[in-house]
């Protein structure tokens, strides 16, 4: 059944086999009934004939007298379709036989007149036939009974044989008729079923064609449920849902690609303009050195962007390799802060720490460090000069909250949710001076990494312009 691959062929084969089986079985039953009826009728006629002949057998004293002659029963005369009879006494003595028998014998059969015995057997002339046999006590002459000694009853066996050619022929014709009829009906039903199946499966074909027509460029098209049969409706709904997801995934992909290209253009323009202006005339070594230093700075920023993007892509693809260690969060925070301490001092930031003695979480040290670096970088860059930065760790139950806040945020409350979007930059990020170009990837990466590490990260802005990053990690079981 595995060879039959198409639904159409399977349906067709199944229904054709079913129809064929039902038709054949019906024909067989019909044949058996008709055959039984024909044979019953045949046997009834043969039995009647035997009984009526038996009434013509008489016992006269010790003599058995057969009162029928072949002149009144011409079928027993020799001919191509002759019938046969033979009469025996109980002692096996042949009393009479039909002239059609000549000196041949029939096999004796002992039935009762009310229940004759039948046998299918070849007739003496070789034709197929059937014999009936009854054993009976012949009628006695009653007139003579009064004055003579009582007679001993003599039992007589009568067997009649008759050719079954007509019945066989009729059954043969019936068989032929049924076989032809069945075959014809099966063929006709296959033709009709084939048409029905093709017609019934047409909507499936339409759906397949519609799906085949959908390419990368036409992801916005949807399958029309239209008058599709009910069985296809859930498939169409599911496919449309799949297309929705596919389309938005493609759109996201395209948007990211466009953003990347777009974000690369500005630093590239800066790099190119710096180099072209520098090369536009002969200059002193200092001037060239300055231009090279500027170019190098741009290259470093672009490299940072590429690395962040790569890290994000790896996280997207689930290819980040993380280790799970017990890390002292307090030590990690102070370690990571080291490289931002100078900037904080330079910008006269008031830094407040609210840390417990120690607090262990299960995490990947390198990734957690990357996250904290990004958050500290933002905090020390975007805090207003002379403002404050607060770093607090607070643990409750099995969770550890890390809160990093900086004053002087100009992100509107409505926009705060977007800080984790890739390439989103607030005005402050666009205008930020001194720390190189911002690409709007840092927090996007943070969210990805924190989620990957099994934590959560959120951002909020207080009414006094304090920007807060809150991270929640699972506490290391002690």
């Amino acid at each position, binding site marked *: 059944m595995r060879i039959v691959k198409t639904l159409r062929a399977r349906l067709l084969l199944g229904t054709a086999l079913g129809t064929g089986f039902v038709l054949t079985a019906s024909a067989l039953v019909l044949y058996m009934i008709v055959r039984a009826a024909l044979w019953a009728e045949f046997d009834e006629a043969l039995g009647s004939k035997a009984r009526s002949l038996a009434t013509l057998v008489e016992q006269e004293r010790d003599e058995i007298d057969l009162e029928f002659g072949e002149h009144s029963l011409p079928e027993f005369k020799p001919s191509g379709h002759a019938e046969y009879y033979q009469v025996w006494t109980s002692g096996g003595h042949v009393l009479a036989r039909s002239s059609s028998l000549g000196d041949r014998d029939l096999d004796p059969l002992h039935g009762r007149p009310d229940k004759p015995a039948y046998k299918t057997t070849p007739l003496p002339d070789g034709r197929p036939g059937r014999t009936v046999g009854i054993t009976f006590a012949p009628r006695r002459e009653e007139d003579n009974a009064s004055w003579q000694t009582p007679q001993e009853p003599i039992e007589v066996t009568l067997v009649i044989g008759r050719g079954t050619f007509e019945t066989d022929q009729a059954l043969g014709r019936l068989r032929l008729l049924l076989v032809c009829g069945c075959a014809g009906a099966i063929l006709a039903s296959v033709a009709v079923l084939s048409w029905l199946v093709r017609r019934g499966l047409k909507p499936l074909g339409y759906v397949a064609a519609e799906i085949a027509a959908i390419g990368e460029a036409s992801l916005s098209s949807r399958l029309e449920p239209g008058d599709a049969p009910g069985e296809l409706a859930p498939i169409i709904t599911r496919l449309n849902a799949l297309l929705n997801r596919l389309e938005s995934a493609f759109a996201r992909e395209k948007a990211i690609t466009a953003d990347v290209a777009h974000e690369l*253009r500005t*630093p590239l323009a*800066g790099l190119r*303009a710096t180099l072209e*202006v520098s090369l*536009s005339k002969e200059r002193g070594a200092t001037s060239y050195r300055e231009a090279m230093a500027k170019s190098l700075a741009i290259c470093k920023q672009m490299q940072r962007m590429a690395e962040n993007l790569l890290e994000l892509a790896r996280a997207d693809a689930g290819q980040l390799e993380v280790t799970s260690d017990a890390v002292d969060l307090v030590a990690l925070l102070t370690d990571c802060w080291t490289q931002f301490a100078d900037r904080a001092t330079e910008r006269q930031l008031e830094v407040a720490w609210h840390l417990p003695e120690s607090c262990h979480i299960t995490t990947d040290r390198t990734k957690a460090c990357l996250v904290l670096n990004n958050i500290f970088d933002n905090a020390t860059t975007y805090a207003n000069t002379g403002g404050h930065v607060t770093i607090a760790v607070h643990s409750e139950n099995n969770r550890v909250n890390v809160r990093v806040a900086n004053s002087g945020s100009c992100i509107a409350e409505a926009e705060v949710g977007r800080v984790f979007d890739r390439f989103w930059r607030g005005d402050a990020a666009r205008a930020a*001076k001194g720390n190189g*170009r911002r690409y709007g990837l840092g927090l996007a990466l943070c969210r990805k990494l924190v989620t990957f590490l099994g934590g959560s990260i959120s951002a909020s802005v207080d009414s006094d312009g304090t920007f807060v990053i809150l991270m929640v990690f699972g506490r290391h079981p002690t």
Partner: protein
Amino acid sequence: MRVLVIEDDGPLRGALCQGLEEASFAVDTSADGEEGLWYARSNEYDAIVLDLMLPRIDGLTILGRLRREGSAVPILILTARDTVADRVKGLDLGADDYLVKPFAFAELLARVRALVRRGYNNKDPVLRVGDLEIDTAGRTVRRGDAAIDLSAREYALLEFLVARAGQVVSRTAIWEHIYDFHSDPESNVVDVHIGHLRKKIERPGRPKLIHTRRGQGYLLGRCE
């Protein structure tokens, strides 16, 4: 000629400023939209190079506001967005030209020069007054057959006077078009440069080109 560059990317802004200054433009720069708009409103620029993605006020808003206020300053949009829709939108809002990042600096310079020429209704990059000839593309000056070597500032001054040949130009106007925002307006640097320029372009036996109009300013060209 004085140009305003509004661009938030530091390195690009620096390179544009240096390149334009070396091409004898007086350059003001701004890193954000609000400040940029303030600059554009408070000075008479010969061209503005405007980035679109800017903090606080975006480039298209600046463009729209300046045009609504009746400013005719030639504006060149500089942006990383390169779709036809973006270009059409910028041009429809009143931009004069459009350049997609990254670009060749020489092309930006040529486009800015073309915008400045257009601002003075000159199509020909070679300006002529009598036998004085200034090739604004090659930045060369000739009087008759003799080439004249000018400093960047002298060239800028001459180019401005020639662009307005036949008109009396006030010291303030010269100041506004030749010097950037950070120059000291109290000095008599305009008069000094006019003096230098006179020495280099005036020739004995030839008609005098730079005339002083007492209390009004200077006039370049034939004296009526």
